[in-house]
């Protein structure tokens, strides 16, 4: 196990309305087996002991499945490792003496709460518009009672992998939520249970997404690269198709 020392430039902002700025800290000795969040824990323990306000950051499961954590490390949401959440990013990926610039997710739709914490409840508001199945689907169906081709089921499951962390919005130069909404729409549009509300869902979720101040997709693919779950932009294309079908071919308005 190696020990490394890092210089951390962390965004500090006391509240939504106050003006933030970067503050530089020395990490002290960090073992490379630590996760990124554990490294921040070590820093915070020191800050607390010295009477300084600890760095506020979001986290929960620390297993890469809840979608709570996430900051932008040297310009990349969730840091440099592909398909990795910040909590699963280990310090062995950094070298002794590295400088890490740690910023919160930035977009108009995600208001900053404090330091590295942003409010991602706009995602919940989008889900509340139709990211669910409200028809009674009965008890657990028998296996293969509803025929779904394996490939389709896999596609739906790939889309369902989205943990709603918001890295796609953070990575997008336009602050667009198309990858998130694309994943949620695809997940349900691909499965039989999602069919009854398919058109209504596409129109309502896109309408909400626009209202909440997310930007427009420019097909720049930064979202796909940043996604810790590897959600493909083919889901954005499916969203574009679903919206087109719902808008022009269904009776929903």
């Amino acid at each position, binding site marked *: 196990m190696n020990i490394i020392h890092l210089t951390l430039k962390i965004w500090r902002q006391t509240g939504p309305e106050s003006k933030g700025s970067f503050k530089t800290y020395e990490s002290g000795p960090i073992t490379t087996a630590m996760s990124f969040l554990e490294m921040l824990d070590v820093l915070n323990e020191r800050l607390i002991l010295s009477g300084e306000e600890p760095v506020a950051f979001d986290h929960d499961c620390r297993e890469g499945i809840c979608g709570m954590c996430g900051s*932008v490390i040297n*310009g990349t949401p969730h840091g440099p490792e592909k398909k990795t959440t910040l909590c699963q990013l280990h310090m062995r990926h950094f070298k002794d003496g590295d400088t890490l610039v740690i910023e919160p997710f930035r977009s*108009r*739709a995600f208001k900053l709460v404090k330091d590295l914490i942003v409010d991602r409840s706009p995602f919940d508001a989008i889900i509340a518009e139709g990211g669910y199945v409200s028809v009674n689907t009965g008890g657990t169906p028998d296996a293969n009672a509803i025929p779904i081709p394996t490939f389709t089921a896999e596609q739906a499951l790939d889309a369902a992998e989205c943990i709603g962390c918001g890295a796609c919005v953070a990575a997008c130069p336009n602050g667009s939520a198309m990858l998130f909404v694309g994943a949620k729409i695809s997940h349900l549009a691909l499965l039989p249970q999602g069919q009854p509300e398919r058109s209504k869902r596409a129109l309502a979720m896109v309408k909400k997404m626009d209202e909440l101040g997310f930007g427009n*997709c420019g097909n*720049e693919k930064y979202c796909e690269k940043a996604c810790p779950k590897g959600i493909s932009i083919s889901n954005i294309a499916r969203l*574009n198709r679903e919206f087109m079908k719902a*808008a022009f071919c269904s009776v929903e308005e």
Partner: protein
Amino acid sequence: MSWILTVLSSSIGKKYIMAVSGACLSFFLLAHLIGNSVSFWGKEAYNSYASHLHSLGFLIYILEILLLLLFLVHIVMGITLFIENLSARPNRYAVKEKERNWSASTMPYTGILILLFLVVHLVNFHFITKTVSTAELVKTTLSNPLIASFYLLSLSGLTLHASHGFWSLFQSLGINHQKYNKLLQLGGLAMAVIIGTTFILIPLLIVTTDSFLQ
């Protein structure tokens, strides 16, 4: 019918408009390119192509108005999206993403460059009282090194714009399929490079070779 307005003013609807107008403009680009390529067969061929085109008379006016509308839709919608997207990410990051998607990220800027080019291009060849043949007009105008270099710069910008646009318009319309994705991506890029370099060839040949269009 208010639903149409609702659909087209949504974020995805705006992208449909960009995609469809972009696709139509691509066809215009291709037609313009084929026309320009006649210049490779010499002065006489080029002049004859130009006079045939002008002899279309009434039809050419209708096509011009349609083209103007297409450009207006694409430009106005592009600027709208650009402004909306700037305000959707008001705070920039201190450190920029290392691997940039250049053709995509520069779309608004190459777009503005193409708009400037369009104005210069129309002033050079459209809003002008022609006293000489089209071939001579092209030759003398583009012999000016300042104009020629602006053309080279703008047409490179156009190539970059199209290299993202050709693929992007399919994606915006939801055309993304694992059997065709490689074709769409490589085909779009190849089309952009072929169209771009052929356009660039004309000012380049005028500047470098005396015999071209002579």
